[in-house]
């Protein structure tokens, strides 16, 4: 076990979000506390004729929890989620299971999903509850007697204490429409505030998702302002003046609208804020330092790697791999501290002591040091090697950091400038030369922030990282052809002429987890994937088709004129006479299909004919390969494989 931890420690990559200053585990636990009262269960019909259907606040909350659960399995596979219903007739807590009678620790609290990394079974159960399915409907019975919020909060406390000990981030999401649960009872009210203080001292952040009633606006001053603290004490990274913006996030409206607004509000808080470094100095000039925190707001989300599963028991179990280091000759176990490193050089090994090795990577303390400014236009579009780091000021080490950062931010935005920075993100991490650019805050139509205000450090490539340009034909297109092309894509602007990442979920990632979910729950194959990245072919044809044809005619004519005398030579395939003359018009059926490569329109025809006649095997391997490659299919293997894949291609198309 200890060895395993060593191994994991070694795998810690520079990118990993670790808070070196803390003993806490960099994990997040979210517990939903959903109010199940009769008003929360009351379905609200939708007023929007475009989106009919009704939805009760409780079911909207459950749907959100289900959505978040699915999402976090993909994006935060180590983080925990739980669902606690309160105000229910029945109660359930660990080994207690009762109907609300005597001796229950937490009456009217129903721990529906225990706080843990969700299991497939729990996903299924929550979906059933959110879908209001028959067998679980009975759980959503409101209690007849009033409930105690102090009790609910302490119940949550106990769940966090035992299930998510030592987590860096623990959050309680309360969804309710009752802004004054203890209006008439001062004792209960003050007990609640004490229990809320316990949660605060435990490091649990309460996030309120208030729902206004049709005839009554949710008023946080009545009760919840006594319950909620600015930030949890353990959340040292949150800027001191960051307030929970409850005013804007009160879910209102009816039916589906309610669900949508709740969903967007919960989504915007779905990820716990984690920094990759905190309070490192930004040196604006010699003698002027401020402190900043760094965040990875952009990082490629990959599916979790496959693991080993042990099938010897009743249910499949994940087997943990433990790496032991052994000597090559005697297979002795080796302690990490005994290991030395050496480099191959001139047929021998050149060795260094661990101290030397680590000093080779040491270029000083972490810093972001500005070494000058340049216009944004100096940053070439190709100067990129990895995702950027987002930085935001912190008042922790230098009072006044935020205002200085803000002044710099505004100046860079206004004048379109960048700062060139020498950037060491943590001790012994490789220094980079970075372009620090200002990012403006962007919000959607509801005022919800989509891109935060702050600076982005783009690591620049070093001279070593820039590759030379490949040899390529150089033929500058004449102006008429360019104009024809402009016509084409003038019709195909993305909405507002912007790339919006939110419109494009990663299709392979989503598909991977949908299949896993189906397998885990023993469900049917989900059929066709929903892939938003596939171009809208019909739209392209309708909007730009005519222009493409015009462009293509010009291209053909120009190509004849420019290269006409010397037919294209390709070593790959024999080509038909029509094509090698570049004269498409002379064939019997003039093909309008726009292709700029020579030959392959013939190949398509030949292959199709051969396919119909069943004579694919008579074609050459080269022809088959070219056909497959030009249709984006793998072209490796024996002839029989190639033929099989060509047949598959036509099968897919029919």
């Amino acid at each position, binding site marked *: *076990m200890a060895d395993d931890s060593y191994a994991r420690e070694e795998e810690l990559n520079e990118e990993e979000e670790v808070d070196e200053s*803390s003993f806490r585990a960099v994990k997040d636990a979210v517990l939903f506390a959903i109010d199940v009262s009769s008003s929360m269960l009351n379905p609200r019909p939708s007023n929007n004729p475009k989106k009919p259907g009704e939805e009760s606040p409780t079911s909207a909350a459950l749907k959100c929890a289900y959505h978040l659960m699915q999402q976090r399995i993909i994006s935060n596979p180590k983080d925990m989620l739980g669902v606690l219903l309160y105000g229910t007739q029945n109660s359930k807590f660990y080994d207690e299971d009762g109907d609300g009678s005597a001796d229950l620790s937490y009456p009217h609290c129903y721990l529906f999903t225990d706080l843990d990394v969700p299991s497939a079974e729990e996903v299924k159960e929550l979906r059933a509850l959110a879908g209001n399915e028959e067998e679980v409907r009975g759980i959503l019975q409101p209690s007849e007697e009033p409930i105690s919020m102090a009790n609910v909060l302490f119940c949550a406390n106990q769940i966090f204490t035992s299930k998510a000990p030592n987590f860096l981030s623990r959050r309680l999401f309360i969804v309710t429409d009752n802004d004054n649960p203890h209006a008439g009872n001062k004792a209960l009210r003050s007990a609640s505030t*004490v229990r809320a203080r316990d949660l605060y001292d435990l490091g649990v952040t309460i996030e309120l998702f208030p729902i206004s009633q049709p005839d009554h606006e949710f008023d946080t001053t009545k009760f919840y302002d006594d319950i909620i603290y600015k930030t949890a004490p353990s959340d040292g990274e949150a800027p001191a003046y960051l307030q929970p913006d409850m005013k804007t996030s009160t879910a209102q409206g009816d039916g589906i609208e309610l669900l949508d607004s709740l969903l967007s509000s919960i989504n915007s808080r779905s990820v716990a*804020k984690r920094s990759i470094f905190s309070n490192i100095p930004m040196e604006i000039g010699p003698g*002027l*330092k401020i402190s900043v925190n760094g965040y990875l707001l952009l990082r490629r989300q990959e599916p*979790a790697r*496959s693991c*080993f*599963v042990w099938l010897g028991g009743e249910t499949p179990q994940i*087997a*943990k791999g*433990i*790496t*032991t280091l052994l000597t*090559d*000759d*005697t297979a002795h176990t080796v302690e990490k501290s*005994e*290991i030395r*490193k050496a*480099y*191959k*050089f001139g047929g021998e*090994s*050149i060795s260094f002591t661990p101290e030397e090795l680590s000093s080779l990577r040491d270029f000083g303390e972490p810093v972001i040091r500005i070494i000058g400014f*340049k216009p944004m236009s100096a940053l070439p579009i*190709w100067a*990129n090697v*990895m*995702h950027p780091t987002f930085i935001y000021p912190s*008042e922790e*080490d230098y009072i*006044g950091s935020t*205002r200085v*950062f803000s002044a710099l931010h505004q100046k860079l935005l206004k004048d379109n400038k960048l700062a*060139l920075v020498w950037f060491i993100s943590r001790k012994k991490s490789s220094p980079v030369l970075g372009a620090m*650019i200002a*990012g403006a805050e962007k919000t959607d139509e509801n005022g919800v922030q989509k891109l935060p205000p702050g600076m982005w450090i783009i690591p620049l490539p*070093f*001279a070593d*990282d820039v590759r030379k*340009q490949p040899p390529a034909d*150089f033929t500058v*297109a004449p102006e008429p052809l*360019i104009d*024809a092309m402009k016509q084409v894509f003038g019709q*195909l602007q993305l909405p507002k002429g912007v*790339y919006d990442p939110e419109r494009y979920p990663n299709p392979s990632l989503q598909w991977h987890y949908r*299949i896993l979910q189906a*397998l885990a729950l023993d469900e049917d194959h989900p059929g066709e994937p929903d892939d938003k990245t*596939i*171009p*809208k072919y019909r739209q392209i044809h309708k909007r*730009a088709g005519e222009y493409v044809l015009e462009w293509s005619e010009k291209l053909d004519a120009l190509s004849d004129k420019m290269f006409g005398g010397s037919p294209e030579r390709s070593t790959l395939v024999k080509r038909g006479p029509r094509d090698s003359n570049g004269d498409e018009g002379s064939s019997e059926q003039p*093909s309008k*299909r726009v292709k*700029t490569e020579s030959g392959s329109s013939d190949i398509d025809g030949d292959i199709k004919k051969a396919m119909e006649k069943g004579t694919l095997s008579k074609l050459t391997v080269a022809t088959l390969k070219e056909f497959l490659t*030009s249709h*984006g299919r793998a072209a490796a293997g024996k002839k029989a494989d190639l033929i099989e894949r060509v047949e598959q291609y036509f099968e897919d198309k029919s």
Partner: protein
Amino acid sequence: MADKEATVYIVDVARSMGEKRHGRSITDLEWAMQYVWDKITTTVSTGRKTANVGVIALRTDDTSNELQDEDSFANISVISHLKQFLMPDIRKLQNAIQPSHTYKGDAISALVLAIHMINTHCRKLKYKRKIVLITNGTGLIDPENVEDIKDKIKEDNIELFIFGPDFDDVEWGVKEEDKDERKALNEKLLRELANDCPNGTFATLENAVANVDIPETKEVRIVPTFKGHLSLGDPGQYETALRIPVERCYKTSVAKPPSASSFVSQSGTEAGQEGGPSATQEAGQGDGTTNVRTSRTYQIDDESAPGGKVDVERDDLAKGYEYGRTAVHISQTDENITSLTTYAGLEIIGFIDQDKYERYLHMSQVSFITASKGYKKGSLALSSLIHALYEAEDYAVARLVIKEAKPPILVLLAPYMTNDFECLLEAPLPYTEDLRTYRFPSLDKVATVSGKIVTEHRNLPTKSLQESMDQFVDSMELDIKDDDGDTVEGLPIEFSYSPVLHRIQSAIKWRAVHPEDPIQEPSAQLTRFSHPEEDLVAKSKQELENLIAAADVKKVPPKTKGRKRNREAEKPLSGLDVDALLNLEPKRAKISPENAIPEFKQLLSRADNVDTINDAVKQMTDIIENQIKHSLGDANYERVVEGLGTMREELVDYEEPALYNELVRDLKEKILGEKLGGDRKELWWLIRKGKLGLIDQETSERSEVLADEAAEFLVPS
């Protein structure tokens, strides 16, 4: 593939080369060898069998070469014939290159010998041929046959470099006063020789050695990462679809430092302590070291087993994935069941405005997209797209699948053109899942608790701060110069070298030649951009001073960070005094184990004397020890770490480090002495990992524990 290489170094080792001149601290020979060693070790580090090196020593005491039968080849020794240079050759060369006791030996003869060596070695094969001659030019040089030699060098297409200490070099700005007459004569002869060769270079040694510092970048072969079609529309469905055959290869790709292999000394003792750092023989070959390999075993949770885990056989395991905490097993026949069916292609989705694209959305390295070679029509078509994008100030967004069954990525396509080259540059874009929605407050306005928006606040710049910042930024505009002193457009990418990569490489090279010496500081080239240039700093001095004054930034003294004594109590949004309510709860004097952390903190916050703090710590310690004692395996460990960590933080804040240090010393003894329910070593490992050892003086002023002692405390004994 890189060309084969044959390089012969001719090093003058005359007695006079062993002298120190013009106030230098090293001999001329040592100086010359700085250049030679760098070049040779650079060649060795490529590990290429076809990069061959030969070395001739000129003006040696004895004579050893193929042409020695002729008198003119006396006092010339071939130290190494042309071959791949390895460590033994380096050691041999080191011993051989020593100042001799003679002044005799002809440089031109050495050149003839070098040409002869190259000829014998390379015959008529394709080689990059190179001769480097370093001499101080003080000996007798016979100018006979020089013209023939020039012709031969020209004919064989040999590159010739001639360097010498204190050679006059107008370009570099070196002129030796009172130059010896013979040396002047020789310099003239050698200069003419080099200049008359098509690939000849003549320079002063200082120039050559200075260039050693400039890191060499390695050229990487161009390999296409995708070959297929750039298309618009679906050619399978619509006659109006457009397809251009294209290729993709990297424009940028991070060059990684060489990777080290692991070894241990065979005896099992500390390897580094025996002979100090040294260039060892091949690991595992009789030098007392052995390579390290890894072995993997597998475990599953089993509550009935001691320790809660049992080993399982690798053969009983199948491939699978985690869905939440559920293991999903995938049978071999279904191996690709979770991957999306895709086909290779680069398909345009739509177009966006250049000025609405946020540059920071680039997710990774950038690639070239060029028309496939040999399809002129294709390159014409692509050119029209490139120019149209450029003129319309648009980018294209496309879906790229580099190979059948690979996941699709969305990419930005940007136009790029120079005088003789055009392409699209492709940069990967983020998907929804790649963008994390952390929210941050605005930087130009502040929302108060009551929801009011204010534009004047201590976190916002005042007018004078903003003005000072504007002026400072303007005064720090970069003016980057290249090696010739010309201003560079854009950013200094081509002069910035990967510091870690080159530092490690030069350390390896240095140690290979100087096994007993400590490693060197990084070369100035690598840290050139670590600080603003002095000129620029001087120029903007006044602006910076104004900015500092207007900013009024105050450093928080490290020891008052988060100090809690006498602080104001934490309050909820409403400002309600919850502490007052807590005081009304008498039972909270005793910490309950199930709500320990909050109650411990609250007890401390109400403590008005040390006794109360003492008592709280005592109670908390008992609770923690109980948790350890009753922990089934590691069940309670995280709770223990949290409790311990909380105590440590609080006691630092309350400036009572001694209390913590006492308890943690005691706890360590109990854990390692197995007094808390058996073997709890893993818990101690967790405590180490969480750095929950002694509070040292750097953390708390009041501590009496030194940093070294605190570090030692955590090391397993």
